């Protein structure tokens, strides 16, 4: 049995190679630099140790090159007068991420962890894998999260959830307080830019240097938290969970997630169908109905002309407001 933050694998990676331009540092030709070397390929050296020494004018003037780091001389190139120093190997540790039972170990490659788990998949996120304790915010599903919704204490190690379109000040306060994750419905584009420090142009994220991973479940703009998602997250209150903002929309698609060991006995998920069919609840994902929910009424087989003039396969949806709309099938998502 492993916990999410338990180390399940470690490896020793080859150290980085640092280039030392001996010829340039001594101000001599490559051949003279090689003659001045006081070490040979394969030598172990310590930081500050003498690599090359040049004496001129009957030994009155002395120029030296010292090792910038501890390591091993990997190569010496006669034609450039350069050498490479390989830093010592470094240890890489891999944590379990999901707590559970180790079901299999594939020697030198992988470990399989099994658990009865709850997963919430977001649509976009930033920041990498983190482990924390799930904590709800006192904010309604459609309400903007501000600093006032954040407690002044107890944020350390928390994965916060709730509300929508948090202000930048709210995100920064949560991060400053030590929260490791933040799940909310939607995000304003300026807030995202302010939080990561630059515009995100391509949906490949996860490596941002942010202190707290952020995951949104609905999209950009002001969109309310889905009640269905809240139903799944609420029972995790106070429990340890893993969050990962890494998103890759293209090939090998990856969406951000919250992952936690579920409580109680495993149950069959109450998902009616994975395919679009009359009666399904769908979320509309394109203007002018972006963010609205409705029920599928009809799925006409033949493509129909839509307002843009294009022909597309469509679906007729009855919105929660009671209005009936016909939209391209590409513009709805199953929402259960």
């Amino acid at each position, binding site marked *: 049995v492993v916990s999410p933050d338990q180390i399940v694998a470690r490896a020793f990676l*080859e150290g*980085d*190679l*640092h*280039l030392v*331009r001996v010829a340039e540092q001594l101000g001599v030709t*490559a051949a003279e630099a090689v003659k001045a070397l006081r070490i040979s390929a394969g030598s172990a050296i310590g930081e500050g140790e003498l690599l090359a020494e040049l004496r001129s004018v009957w030994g009155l003037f002395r120029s030296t090159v010292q090792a910038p780091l501890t390591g091993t001389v990997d*190569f010496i*190139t006669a*034609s*450039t007068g*350069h050498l*490479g120093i390989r830093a010592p190997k470094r240890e890489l540790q891999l944590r379990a991420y999901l707590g559970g039972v180790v079901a299999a170990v594939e020697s030198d490659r992988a470990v399989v962890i099994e658990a009865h788990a709850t997963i919430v998949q977001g*649509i*976009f996120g930033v920041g990498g894998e983190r482990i924390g304790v799930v904590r709800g915010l006192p904010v309604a599903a459609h309400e903007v999260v501000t600093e006032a919704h954040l407690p002044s204490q107890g944020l350390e190690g928390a994965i916060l959830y709730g509300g929508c379109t948090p202000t930048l000040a709210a995100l920064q306060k949560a991060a400053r307080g030590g929260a490791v994750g933040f799940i909310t419905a939607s995000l*304003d*584009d*300026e807030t995202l830019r302010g939080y990561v420090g630059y*515009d*995100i*142009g*391509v*949906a490949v994220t996860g490596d941002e240097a942010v202190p707290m991973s952020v995951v949104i479940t609905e*999209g*950009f*703009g002001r969109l309310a938290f889905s009640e269905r998602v809240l139903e799944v997250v609420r029972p995790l209150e106070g429990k340890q969970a893993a969050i990962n903002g890494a*998103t890759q*929309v*293209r*090939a090998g698609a990856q969406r951000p997630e919250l992952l936690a060991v579920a409580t109680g006995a495993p149950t069959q998920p109450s998902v009616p169908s994975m395919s679009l069919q009359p009666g399904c609840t769908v979320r509309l*994902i*394109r*203007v*002018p109905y*972006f963010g609205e929910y409705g029920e599928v009424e009809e799925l006409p087989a033949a493509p129909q002309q*839509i*307002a*843009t*003039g*294009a022909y*597309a396969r469509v679906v007729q949806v009855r919105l929660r407001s009671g209005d009936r709309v016909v*939209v*391209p099938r*590409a*513009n709805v*998502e199953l929402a259960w």
Partner: protein
Amino acid sequence: VHAFTEVQELSGRSIVTEADPPFVMTGSDLTHGIDLYLSTSSAGGGLQMLVAGVVGTITAESAERAALGAGAIVIESVSADDGREDHERIERIRHVKPDIVLLTGGVEGGSSQHVVEVAEILVAAAPRPRFGSTLKLPVIYAGNSAAAAEVQRILGSLAQLSIVPNVRPTIEREDLGPAREAIHELFLSHVMSHSPGYGKLLSWSPVEIMPTPAAVGDIVQQYAQQTGFSVMCVDIGGATTDLFSVFPDRQGEPRFNRTVSANLGMSYSIANVLREAGTAALKRWLPFEIDDNALRERLLNKMVRPTSIPQTVEDLFVEQAVCREALRLALAHHRALSVGVEQARERGIADIFRQSAQRYELVDLMKLDMVIGSGGVLSHAPSRMQAALMMLDGFALEGITQLSVDSIFMMPHLGVFASVHPQAAREIFEHDCLVHLGCAVVPVVAPRARLSGPLAQVWVDGVLVGEVVRGEVTSLCTGRTGSATVRVVPLHRAVDVGAGRGAPHQRTVVLGACGILCDGRSRPLELAADTVQQQERVYRNLGLL
């Protein structure tokens, strides 16, 4: 199997079997089965390469052209003079995971030292191959042959090195062929062979599997060669925009170039177009007002839900505005890399002492005969006029240019088909693939010339059909199809329509749904402050509103 089943359903022919291969090969039987199976691949996002050279504008640029011409995406270009410190280059290279590295540098008989230094940087960075983590990184060395042994010694532990003739044997001469062939071979043996099902596909096809962009490049080159046209072809996808062109160099030889703008696309990288162009640049193409935040949010939502499609006219125009900016940025990138090098006999003693090649831009829009648009936003635009206007605006075309689109993105298939049946491929290309929209007529007014009234007259098959009006975009002869001789006569001495200032110019074009698109706006294309009203007028004139 799904794809074969779909072809079977659409064609009504019996094709699929339970066996391997899952289709029936029947040779000349007209009733069922297929004659030939061919394949191109853009598996895993295509072939990704790192290129390195000594001088950015000489060897590194040649390496980039070699890689792009072979169908690769250049994810990083490193040169000894790129202004970065060693640690910055090393850090950057460590973060990329190329499929193949192309290392160049130095001319034959020149210094070896700098290219060896670049090899040292490479070994210090030790980039890992994207596929097959246990394999050595494939590196092609196409630099000064005198340094090959030293490069081999330095890179030996890191890479599987292939040594090919220098891409830049002299400053004035570029020889990309051997490097391109080596890239193609390594693509097949190292990249494709790691793709699931590759062996199976290979066993079904009588010819090798080509990278998809290389196949498009082949058909563009063949078409340019057969027609003698200067051609530019754009393929704008969800993540990248590829531009292919064939323009003559100063010796009159057709020169092929391809560039990939890796992060300019209509879905996965749509937000990057926004980032590079800015909201103001996107909004100048819209015939309505939109709030900056709302625009940004729409595009970010498209990025995270890339398969959604516009369902309002306003939303469609927003995506088409993004397309215009992606085309504009991709063309700027293409122009920068598509350069010719002056031959030695044209250069003076001073140039030779300067040891820098005299570069000149190959792309000349005034000389461009034909532009071909491909990719969903162009091929499947609800109206052909929208596609024509996106290309006219995005590329800021000049002179008389034939406008066409690829009907259903057939070009890569025809590119590989041409390696087996060139004549059949050409016929399909001309009759089924290319959809001729018409032509653009764009007079260019000399800088600082103050003109009033119409800029030029347009004659079709000897009949005056209309005029190009300053500042306006209009269409003539819409609905007329087939071949026609378009003669454009400047009405001022400061106006150039392709034959020099004040001179009439004529070309035979194929007219289509858009007729003759007359653009009287200034070049470089600068839109007035009241862009919404101006765009509204353009859209209305062309029947798009």
